[in-house]
């Protein structure tokens, strides 16, 4: 399976198994973004549940195609807020037209 890890305007498609631990996902992200696993936090969206390193994806109901937010530790040692930028969706603009078709 794969999960979609998102931060700001970037999405990482990470291939993984349900039995993998969250820590292993962070190790994979470390290869891509050069941030130590301790400075990464993964949050299951849209529930906002913070995922625990020692538990598996399946344990925490993270399934194929799931969206997981990545946040990083800031200089003051706290984690940043979840920040996922969405595109200005043409679906929304279409709704605004009031169903003209």
């Amino acid at each position: 399976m794969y999960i979609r890890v998102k931060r700001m305007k970037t999405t990482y498609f990470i291939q993984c198994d349900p039995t993998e631990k969250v820590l292993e996902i962070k190790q994979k992200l470390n290869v891509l973004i050069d941030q130590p696993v301790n400075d990464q936090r993964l949050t299951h969206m849209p529930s906002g549940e913070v995922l625990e390193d020692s538990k598996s994806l399946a344990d925490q109901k993270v399934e194929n195609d799931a969206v997981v937010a990545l946040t990083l530790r800031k200089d003051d040692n706290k984690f940043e807020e979840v920040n996922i930028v969405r595109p200005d969706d043409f679906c929304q603009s279409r709704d605004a037209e009031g169903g003209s078709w």
Partner: protein
Amino acid sequence: MTEMRKEDTVKLISAEGFEFVINKEAAMVSQTIRNMLTSPGSFAEAQHGEVTFPEISTTILEKICQYFHWSLQYASGKETEFPIEPELTLELMMAANYLHT
């Protein structure tokens, strides 16, 4: 499962500048991307592992990335449906045509 290597990923960039980092093998489901990444010397994309699609919107590009991964899973025997929202159909078909997917 598999070890993560940065060289094995590519970055696809949408019209709005959103980035999708995906497995190279998945990206090569697209014949167009395969040609860009494998033809020697002809594309700058091959060196940087980055491909920009000024004509493809973020929503469509994400759907395409999901399709690439679904396609790999399907090829390895996991037969599931690939859901497509009706409002995306036309734009998705145009992008698929361009990508030879």
